[in-house]
């Protein structure tokens, strides 16, 4: 099953469904219809036993987010702010998408673990830093002391090269 977002074409053989979640076209069955109220990730993929939320961001200046390697304190502050903003946007999109999917699911449908995949055009050296921030902010895993279930089972931050290297079964190409 193929699906496109932000200049990339993803392929998920064996997926039950893969669609643009933020669909603006009213004639499409996956029309979102709540974009005035809720934010949305780019793609949702339903696998037999798992759900993937996918967000794609192609930056022109990835170093704008590299707060750890800023040349001075002012720059570090600006980059930290951009990084916080990016993290907050990614978190907001995830949570709203999660709620939307929960609301549209028929009562009694069994839960599937949700994994959040953010495809960002960042250096390999930055991916781990952003993942750590995002993991804590979502929060992913069994985060709360009283939690009995997970909001997100995992989150990963990867660039297109890493996607193709880590997921040989899910080819990614620019179109």
């Amino acid at each position, binding site marked *: 099953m193929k699906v496109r977002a932000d200049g990339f074409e993803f392929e998920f053989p064996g997926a039950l469904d893969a669609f643009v979640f933020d669909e603006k076209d009213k004639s499409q069955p996956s029309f979102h219809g709540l974009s005035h109220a809720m934010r949305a990730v780019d793609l949702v993929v339903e696998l037999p036993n798992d759900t*993937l939320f996918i967000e794609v961001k192609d930056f022109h200046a990835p170093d704008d987010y590299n707060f750890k390697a800023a*040349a001075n304190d002012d720059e570090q502050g600006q980059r930290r702010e951009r990084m916080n903003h990016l993290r907050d946007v990614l978190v907001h999109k995830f949570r709203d998408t999660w709620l939307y999917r929960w609301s549209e699911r028929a009562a009694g449908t069994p839960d599937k673990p949700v*994994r959040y995949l953010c495809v960002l055009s960042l250096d390999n050296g930055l991916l781990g830093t952003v993942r750590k921030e995002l993991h804590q902010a979502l929060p992913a895993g069994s985060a709360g002391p009283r939690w009995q279930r997970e909001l997100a089972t995992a989150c990963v931050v990867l660039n297109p090269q890493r996607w193709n290297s880590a997921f040989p079964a899910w080819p990614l190409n620019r179109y």
Partner: protein
Amino acid sequence: MLDHIKLEQFTAFEQFSLKFSPGLNVFIGENSCGKTHLLKLVYAACDISTSQKSFAEKLNRVFLPSGEQIGRLVKRRGVSSKCNVEVTRIVQVDDQPKRLTLRLTFSNHTKEAAKATESGARKSWREHPLTSVYIPVKDMMANAPGFRSLYSLRHIHFEEVYADIIDRAFLGTLKGPTDKDRKRLLEILQQSMEGKVITRNEEFFLKSPQGELEFTLLAEGIRKLGLLWVLIQNGTLLDGSVLLWDEPEANLNPKLMRTVVQILVELQRLGVQVFVTTHNYNLLKEFDLQLEAKDQALFHSLYRDEQRNVQVASFTRYEELQPNAIDDTLGQLADREIRQQMGGLGQ
């Protein structure tokens, strides 16, 4: 200024040639690709222009092959082989640039350095002294007391770069007031070190408002900044000199990398030709972030081709650097983390 180098059958190199940037040269590559060998070779060629030593003798002292048999620097092939080394630099003669090439030839059977054949612009090479500094990976500042005299009196098994760097650090201060560029660099270093370096009886101390701390009590990273401070203060690193630094990141807190890179970029702007090897992403990224369009920099990636021969690819911008051993390693780490998080999906 060093212009280029050509090597045949020298240590790790089969056939190798490389053009240098007149400013900053950053070398990356996996272990055993010959980064340190390149730096040592360039250093030996620079050093003999001031010390007037034989090129072969200096190479031997810097590389220290077993039994000081220079033939052991020929690439091992299991058959008789000859090695050729060619270093070219540009000097100013009557305000005109002139190329000088120095060559050295020897075989794997050559035992003594004196039997190696030096040719090319041998005389002119030594008539145009080129000040150079080689900073080895291991710190020597804290071990300075007594080391120089021991090294000159006894035949101890230490690569000569260690004795040389102490000699450079002990050079007296330049006469006259410190010019404003040097003053600015010294101040940047003083801010990071929170003090200045003083010497007493062959011993280095960091003098700060809290008192004087001997170098043996200082963090290795601060010792490195201290060494840079001394070399700038005593005028070793001036316009037209060459700085060769093997892995500046060793024992350096990532926070100090910004200062180190700032100094290296500034030195390049002041006319010092800089050669640096690194395995460190943060250091490379600092160069990428601090270099401006006006700067003269080349990133050299050393790698082994399918025949296992060392090759080089040079780029003016970090993001074009390919192959990038440091980035590849970070990528592989990221892959492992992604696979771990994904629980086997997508395979």
